[in-house]
Structure formats: structure tokens, C-alpha cells
């Protein structure tokens, strides 16, 4: 019982980060029908910014807003340089473009920075824990879950209460009709990339705090988690993406602690197996959405 509760908290902490990444993937898929395999590059770029800023003597308090800012700017730059040129192309072209962006960003850091791992110091409190009854809870997980809940509530208010949120939801449901209503395709798509950048930035803060290093290929893992969680939840569904993130996080933690020791290193493989099973029985993901035509 104690172990299960412990796993749940760990899983929620891990799942929070995945949920933020998946929500960013889902927002962009909604307006553009683009499954963004370059989403993790926001964390690659933020990772190097973190390394340079900390090396230059910045404190983590300054690095935190820097990560979000770098993530948003990177997201907007990638949209302008790559995705704006293939708007309206078929899904396969969009997919290949996002793969291209992923490889180009890694290659830039590989060629012009260094192929080796750049490490930086993590904030001291990351490894602290506190006791609640028989549970040992990480300060880090508590902060991650708390910040994620705030970010999700803020995103939900943005989508429900503002004209931008309304335009984004309308564009995701039926892009052409939204344009007929006067929704500017540029604004809504750039807005989606900015929102996706903010969410990836918040996830990136925690990802980088925990990792304490970055490499040119650092984006692959967060990208995989975000894309997988969005797929598990049902592509295009924002609630599904958040749900998918938490499901993926919980599944990983539970499997790692429950699998026999000899299999524990295969956790990732077992997760993929379960995802494959999910898609056999429920190809549309946990929450299905009806798609109209996209731009």
C-alpha cells in the first residue's frame, strides 16, 4: 500500500512533465494537423541556454524565466523558418518537415558547439525529500505537480475565456470556417506555437533541473514522451493529451517498480508494448475527436 502510494506520487510527478509536453504537441496538431517531431528541440535549445547562463554565473532564479523565453522564441522561429512554408501541405510532408527540423537542430549543436555532454549544476533542493506519515515525498515532485496544475488551469482559462482561446478552438475544429469568421490564420498558428513553447518551457525547466546536462540529441526523449502521450490520449484532444501524459508517467513508474529486477531495464520496451496493445483495441486513443479539414 505504501509502495503503491509512493509510486502514484512519483508517477504523477513524471506524468506532469509529459502532460505539459503532450499538450504542446496537441495544440499544434489541432490547428495545423502537424505531428511535431521537433517539439523536443525546444528543450535542446533551452538546455544549451541553461548551460551557458549557468556557466556565466546566472542563478537558477534567472535561468527559469530564461528557459521559458528561449523555448517560446525557438518555437516561433521554427514555425517561421520551417512550418510556415509547408502550411496546407499533406500530413506526410508536415511530418517529414518536423523530422527535418529535429535533425537540423541536433546537427547545429553537434557541429558548432560540441558532440559531448555539457553538464551544469542542479538546484540543491532537487534531491531533497520530506516525510508525510510513512511516505517520503520529493520536494521536486511536489513542485512539479503544483506548477503543472497551475499551468493547466491557466491554459484552460486561456482557451475557455479569451477570444484567442476561442479562435484556437474554432480553428482546431474547422480551420477554413474559422477563417471565414475572420480568424487570422497567421495569428492563430503563431499563437499555437507560442502556447506550445510556453508549455514546453515549463516542462523544460523541470526536465533540465532533473537531468543536469544537455547533448545535441537531448530533444529525442522529451519529444517521444510528448508525442506518445498525445497519441495515447487521442491526437487532437487537449484533455486527452493531458490524460495521456499522466497515464504514461504512471505506467513507467509502476512498471519500473513492479517488474522483476531482471526485466526492470526493459521498462521502456514494455511501455511500448502496452501502447501497441492500446492502439490495437482503441486506435483513436483514449479520447476520440472528430476532425474536420485543416489548413
Amino acid at each position: 500500500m505504501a509502495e503503491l502510494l509512493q509510486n502514484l506520487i512519483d508517477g504523477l510527478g513524471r506524468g506532469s512533465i509529459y502532460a505539459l509536453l503532450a499538450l504542446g504537441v496537441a495544440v499544434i496538431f489541432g490547428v495545423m494537423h502537424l505531428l511535431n517531431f521537433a517539439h523536443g528541440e525546444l528543450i535542446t535549445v533551452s538546455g544549451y541556454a541553461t548551460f551557458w547562463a549557468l556557466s556565466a554565473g546566472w542563478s537558477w532564479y534567472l535561468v527559469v524565466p530564461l528557459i521559458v523565453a528561449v523555448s517560446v522564441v525557438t518555437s516561433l522561429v521554427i514555425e517561421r523558418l520551417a512550418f510556415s512554408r509547408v502550411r496546407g501541405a499533406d500530413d506526410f510532408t508536415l511530418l517529414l518537415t518536423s523530422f527535418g527540423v529535429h535533425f537540423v537542430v541536433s546537427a547545429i549543436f553537434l557541429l558548432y558547439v560540441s558532440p559531448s555532454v555539457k553538464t551544469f549544476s542542479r538546484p540543491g533542493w532537487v534531491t531533497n525529500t520530506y516525510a508525510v506519515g510513512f511516505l517520503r515525498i520529493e520536494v521536486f515532485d511536489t513542485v512539479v505537480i503544483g506548477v503543472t496544475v497551475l499551468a493547466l488551469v491557466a491554459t484552460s482559462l486561456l482557451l475557455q475565456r479569451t477570444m484567442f482561446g476561442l479562435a484556437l478552438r474554432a480553428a482546431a475544429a474547422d480551420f477554413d470556417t474559422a477563417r471565414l469568421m475572420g480568424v487570422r490564420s497567421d495569428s492563430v498558428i503563431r499563437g499555437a506555437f507560442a502556447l506550445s513553447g510556453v508549455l514546453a518551457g515549463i516542462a523544460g525547466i523541470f526536465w533540465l533541473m532533473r537531468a543536469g546536462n544537455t547533448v545535441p540529441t537531448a530533444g529525442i526523449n522529451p519529444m517521444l514522451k510528448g508525442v506518445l502521450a498525445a497519441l495515447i490520449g487521442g491526437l487532437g484532444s487537449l484533455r486527452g493529451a493531458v490524460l495521456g501524459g499522466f497515464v504514461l508517467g504512471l505506467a513507467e513508474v509502476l512498471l519500473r517498480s513492479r517488474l522483476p529486477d531482471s526485466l526492470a531495464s526493459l521498462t521502456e520496451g514494455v511501455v511500448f508494448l502496452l501502447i501497441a496493445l492500446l492502439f490495437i483495441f482503441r486506435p483513436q486513443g483514449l479520447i476520440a475527436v472528430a476532425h474536420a479539414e485543416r489548413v
Partner: protein
Amino acid sequence: MLEVSGLTTRYGEISALRNASLLVGAGEVVGLIGPNGAGKTTLLNTLAGLLEPSEGVVIFDGEDVTGSSPERLLRMGLALVPEHRRIFGDLTVEENLRIGGIIVSTRRRQSLLEEMAEQFPVLRQKWTTAAGFLSGGEAQQLAIARALMSEPRLLMMDEPSLGLAPVMVDVVFELISSLRDRGRTLLVVEQNATRMLDLADRAYVMRSGAVVAEGTGADLRADDQLFDTFLGN
């Protein structure tokens, strides 16, 4: 107000619209009739900016707007109630109307919302319902109200009575005539040719992607051969 000359729109090799020309004057109600596949929807979608014409010129309010985006055309005052209504089913009735008024100021949007609630009691009753739950007739009223939220100077409607129960067809035609009586400029595509000709100041007849006849409702109805051939009952 709207002058279209020699407009041609292609889907790949196929010209869905060939060399179409028409005029809509301020305050006029103009009908666009003809059989299925005549190019009526292609014409409206091209005028609204959803499709790019390969040839021809569109002048709106004296300005050449050929090939402009839908969002720009709407800001100039040209709105389209699209075929099949295309309301946002996951959004509430109110949210659908709000999005229709995205280009007007917040204060103006609020007062337009109140006007719509008054003018469309059916919508007021379902104000916070997801629009996907509306009946066909209610959804059509929502689609028209949503387009009115942008305060368009020229309102185009594509088959507003399509697929509606007879009693709802009456409601939609009453709505069109009340818009006419209030001096709105309308360009309406209708399969229900007889009723449209009764209502319109003038009409254009399309067939196989081309405009083949033009005249007042009475003229067109008097032309027996035309009526039987193209619009036949």
C-alpha cells in the same frame, strides 16, 4: 458593390467555374440558381477567398480584391454562410456567435450578442448548449446569426434551406426576406429556385460552371424554356 468579371476557378485540370461574371448592387438581393454541380458553391467560395481563382477580377467596393484571404475579405465587409452551415459543434451557441464577432470591438460584440439573442429566440433558449446538439433549422439560424455578428455589408449564403424540414425552410426564407426588408445586401445560392426568384431582385442562372442567364425573378420565370431546362420542376 460587387463586380465579378471573367472569374475562372480550377480544381487541378477541371474548371469548376468558367468565365463567370456578375454584379451585386448595394441593397440588392441577388439569387444564384442552377442544378447541382453548376459551380454555384465554387463561385461563392472563390468570392469568400477560400479558393484562388486562376483568371478573372473581383471588385468589392471599388477595390480589386481578387485572390484576397477570407480573413481580409471579412474585414472589408464580405461574409459567407457556408454550405452545410459548418457551425462549430463543440462550441456553445454563444461561443459560435462570439467567434463570428471576432473582428468587432468587445463592446460592440456584446451588444450584437444581445441583438442576436433577441432576434433569434430559438438560439437564446440554447445559449449555453454545445451547437452540435442543435437541429438542422436551429443550426442554420445560428450560422446566419454568426455571420451577422461581423456586421457584413454583403452577406452571401450557400444553400441555406438545404436538408431542412419544410417548416424550417419557411423559417429560413422568412429570415432572408426580413434581412432584405432591412436593406441588407444579399447574394444567395438556392436549389429552391421558385422561392428564391420570388424573393430576389435579380438572379443569375448557372450551369456547368458558367453563368447562362440573368434577369429579374419575373423575367426568368417567364422564360419557360429556360425554366424547364435548367430549373425544371
